[in-house]
């Protein structure tokens, strides 16, 4: 086939190598990011699902309908069951209200149970194989001193005796703070009936854990369940279970996405540049082919076939590189962090392959589009200029490619469009600034030494080309700076989310008469704590005299009992955004107590200032009027409330008190002392969750770092493509200068200064662009606070100059090492 022969000849003559390389890198970078993030995403979801013990959990106050089990089985879902409840555990004279969990053999579906042979031991933790055998129990270390027992002793649960065989160090879903009920006792589900603890009316939570190997199976399973479930059952996924962690993952993913978008853009620029060079070199060839009788159609077919074959070949090679790269990265992460990454799915492979074709069609084709239209008369009159596709159309197709690729990649059109809009703004600024700066450098150059003059003269002579180069360098540097800054502030933001000393234990169910002594005890022990908040549990029943359940509203405050509190001082992470706090607020004519509502709840419930709410608290009625609307930080690990009442409003509902405190690992035995003194209060240990969250954050941060480096490589390729574009003319000129007797230093020196000027200009413009882009990204996409980046203003131009001049000199070195006669002859 002629097209293949032509392709081979074009490849051999080096004309396609840069285009091919750019494609390989495009697919390679995008592919590696796509594959790696896919693996990471799957693993993080799994890791986070390990916090849930499953991909989804159905939670119910009644036993799960057994008819569903075979159906779930048939749908390919893995399943396991757990039953949790509070019950007294007895050992001799001692007794304790423990949080009991009875599980079947398959528990947990995600994550592990970690056990130890000793209580409160620093080492010796192992992943448990299976669950407690019938007749055995694994217990929280705290339970040993509380019941005054040792491993091997028996404890009574209801009518049944269990032998305590191991210390339970960690369970996957142990951390849901408001469901925790004191120290844990884990037992086998088979034994549950023998305890005779569960009677009609007992408060029991039945959990049906579900997992699937494929997203499709899971999604279809969930869809089926949502149809089947009754009002008592609720599906829990990670999002509902771990809001804070989900936010981190979302931001991390968005960053990787952004990195991929930037990778695509950089590769696209490289492809467009090399396609432009290819097109220029092929004008004469097409004119000749047409004079020899080839029609425009035949030329178009020949070139399209060549391009498609090239794209396919390059994409395949790129894919292999991507696979190698992602394996290398994954290997690094796995060995560094002892995590197991899951295999990537099918989609990233398909997507990576498509990337090559789409990038070629949208970035390269517009530059090549005019080729079939080159007039055959050009063989006689070389000065004839073919009708190139207008630059605006070329930009349009490039923009289209970006949108299509980003949309395909992220399925997040908003992100694609914001990056695109920012880029266009930046491009305009770039052009204006580049023109002004270039004329400034001429004035400076006029008064400088000979190497400088030569460099500036060269820039001026290739004015149009220099402008394009500056624009390309600026865009590439801008994208890289942006990525760098976003990465830095994001990691800082994450670290700030869970600072050292963030509260890691909650104390709940503190009766009113113990508030003062417990406060004193904590303060005597120098334990960092939050204030004690009174709390009652209630259900929102009416909004402005309308039944809340009948209103068409969607918010989780409507679905369950919620925690209500009162306080006279606002916690530091709370901020009133509408209405007034108690000091300034006045009751209306209705004389109802005021309530301050969290913004998210107010939005979900459609509440405004002055709206009247009715709550049901243990059968009693509580009425209030909305006095203010607040924002708060759900990640703060402090007690947070949707509804805060004015002081005294809850007094008649006999509230219990809640607080959170920071307890370092070495002080954990204090819990025993606390619980011995006040056996009725509940302690929720969040330190393990926090540790898990921090592990996930470290992983994401490291992935982000690696992706940054890969994208950087794409950026260098763009710079190289741009330098390479002007190399032919430069080689000729340098050879001429050499032939005329110029020293090597003069030539390389002028090349160095020329590119250094370009690099500095591009660096400055890139910073302006990056600041604009960053502001947009931080405000609209990533929602990270905007921080100033002073270091960028110094590092940017320096980095630009160093990178660009380095590449320029490297590209031109061969000119001064090859005899000038040879260069001139080859270029003739």
């Amino acid at each position, binding site marked *: 086939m002629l097209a293949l022969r032509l392709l081979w000849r*074009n490849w051999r003559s080096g004309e396609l190598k840069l285009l091919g390389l750019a494609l390989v890198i495009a697919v390679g970078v995008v592919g590696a990011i796509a594959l790696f993030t896919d693996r990471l995403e799957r693993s993080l979801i799994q890791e986070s699902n390990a916090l849930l013990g499953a991909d989804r959990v159905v939670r119910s106050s009644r036993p799960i309908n057994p008819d569903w089990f075979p159906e779930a089985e048939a749908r390919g879902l893995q399943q396991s069951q757990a039953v949790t409840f509070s019950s007294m555990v007895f050992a001799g004279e001692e007794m304790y209200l423990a949080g009991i969990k009875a599980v079947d053999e398959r528990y947990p579906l995600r994550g592990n149970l970690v056990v130890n042979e000793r209580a409160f031991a620093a080492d010796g933790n192992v992943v448990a194989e299976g669950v407690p055998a019938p007749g055995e129990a694994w217990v929280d270390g705290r339970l040993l001193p509380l019941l005054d027992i040792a491993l091997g002793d028996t404890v009574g649960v209801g009518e049944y005796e269990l032998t305590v065989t191991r210390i339970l160090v960690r369970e996957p879903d142990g951390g849901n703070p408001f469901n925790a009920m004191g120290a844990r006792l884990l037992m086998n589900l088979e034994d549950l009936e023998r305890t005779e603890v569960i009677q009609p009316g007992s408060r029991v939570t039945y959990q049906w854990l579900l997992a699937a190997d494929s997203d499709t199976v899971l999604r279809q399973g969930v869809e089926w369940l949502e149809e089947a479930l009754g009002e008592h059952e609720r599906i829990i996924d990670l999002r509902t279970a771990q809001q804070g962690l989900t936010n981190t993952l979302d931001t991390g993913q968005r960053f990787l996405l952004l990195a991929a978008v930037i990778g695509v853009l950089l590769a696209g620029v490289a492809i467009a540049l090399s396609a432009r060079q290819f097109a220029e070199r092929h004008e004469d060839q097409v004119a000749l082919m047409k004079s*020899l009788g080839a029609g425009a*159609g035949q030329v178009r077919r020949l070139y399209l076939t060549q391009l498609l074959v090239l794209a396919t070949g390059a994409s395949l090679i790129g894919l292999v590189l991507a696979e190698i790269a992602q394996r290398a990265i994954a290997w690094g992460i796995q060995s560094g962090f002892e995590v197991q990454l899951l295999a990537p799915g099918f989609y990233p492979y398909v997507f990576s392959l498509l990337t090559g074709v789409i990038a070629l069609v949208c970035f390269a084709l517009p530059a090549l589009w005019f080729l079939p239209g080159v007039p*055959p008369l050009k063989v*006689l009159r070389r000065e004839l200029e073919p009708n190139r596709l207008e630059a605006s159309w070329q930009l349009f197709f490039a923009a289209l490619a970006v949108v299509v690729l980003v949309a395909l990649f992220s399925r997040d059109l908003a992100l694609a469009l914001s990056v695109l809009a920012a880029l266009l703004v930046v491009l305009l600024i770039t052009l204006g600034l580049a023109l002004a700066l270039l004329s400034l450098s001429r004035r400076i150059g006029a008064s400088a030494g000979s190497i400088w003059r030569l460099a500036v003269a060269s820039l001026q002579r290739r004015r149009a080309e220099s402008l394009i180069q500056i624009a390309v360098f600026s865009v590439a540097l801008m994208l890289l700076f942006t990525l760098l800054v976003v990465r830095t502030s994001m990691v800082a933001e994450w670290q700030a989310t869970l600072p050292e000393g963030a509260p890691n234990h909650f104390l709940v169910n503190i009766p009113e008469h113990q508030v003062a002594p417990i406060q004193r005890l904590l303060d005597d022990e120098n334990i960092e704590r939050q204030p004690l908040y009174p709390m009652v549990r209630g259900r929102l029943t009416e909004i402005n005299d309308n039944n809340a359940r009948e209103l068409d509203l969607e918010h989780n405050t409507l679905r369950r009992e919620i925690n209500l509190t009162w306080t006279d001082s606002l916690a530091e992470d709370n901020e009133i955004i509408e209405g007034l706090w108690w000091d300034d607020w006045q009751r209306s004519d209705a004389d109802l107590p005021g309530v301050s509502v969290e913004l998210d709840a107010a939005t979900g419930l459609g509440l405004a200032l002055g709206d009247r709410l009715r709550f049901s608290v243990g059968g009693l009625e509580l009425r209030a009027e909305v006095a203010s609307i607040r924002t708060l930080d759900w990640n703060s690990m402090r007690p947070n409330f949707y509804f805060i009442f004015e002081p005294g409003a809850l007094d008649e509902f006999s509230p219990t008190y809640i607080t959170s405190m920071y307890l370092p690992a070495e002080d954990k035995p204090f819990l025993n002392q606390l619980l011995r003194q006040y056996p009725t209060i509940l302690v929720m240990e969040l330190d393990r969750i926090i540790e898990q969250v921090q592990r996930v954050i470290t992983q994401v941060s490291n992935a982000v770092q690696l992706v940054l480096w890969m994208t950087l490589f794409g950026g260098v390729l763009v710079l190289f493509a741009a330098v390479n574009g002007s190399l032919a003319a430069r080689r000729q000129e340098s050879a001429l200068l050499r032939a005329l007797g110029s020293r090597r230093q003069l030539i390389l020196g002028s090349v160095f200064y020329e590119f250094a000027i370009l690099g500095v200009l591009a660096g400055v413009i890139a910073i302006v662009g990056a600041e604009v882009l960053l502001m947009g990204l931080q405000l609209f996409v990533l929602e990270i606070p905007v921080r100033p980046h002073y270091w960028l203003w110094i590092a940017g131009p320096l980095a630009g100059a160093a990178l660009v001049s380095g590449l320029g000199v490297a590209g031109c070195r061969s000119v001064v090492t090859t005899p000038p006669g040879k260069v001139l002859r080859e270029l003739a």
Partner: protein
Amino acid sequence: MTGTLMVDARDIEKRVTTAEGELQILHRVSLSVADGESLAITGPSGSGKSTLLGILAGLDTPTSGSVALAGRELTTLDEEGRAKVRADHVGFIFQSFQLLPGLSALENVMLPLELRGVSGARERAREFLARVGLSERLSHYPPQLSGGEQQRVAIARAFASQPRVLFADEPTGNLDTVTGAKIIDLLFELNREQGTTLLLITHEERLAERCGRRVELTAGELQGA
């Protein structure tokens, strides 16, 4: 004049618009070339020779008038149609050789045959390169060949597709006298063997003399047609 007409141009005018206004390059040029004839078009630089050659070969279109090439009226055809006529009947030799630098001598000669889908392109190209004395240079690339050798490759390329009419634009313009003379000999030898109609532009006297007929173009007007 013998046989049928290979080229038949009537009242060709060519006007172009430039920054200085409209410029008339050709004034009512009429010219016929019979099958197998050889014709030299001479004239000073800027007289419109290349423009005329471009129009006669179907690379360009006249502003008015008609051109028939191998019996096909070019002015009624679109670019695709003219390309077909060129593919079937026309060969070119250029002053600047117009060889593709990335292709070997053999591949340069094969290219027009390949574009036409001729089978045995490689063998025929080899054969014609042998005819121009370049059997030893098949795999050389144009930058590795001398000017004379490059033009011989171009001649081999032109004749290999066995065109009925060959257009040559200053074929010796870039060559020294001795090499130029050899190229002229080669050109006419092949032309005689193949019975090709030859239409060439030159301002070299000894080349024009070898042609059966010559016309002179001065300021866009034909003398001695």
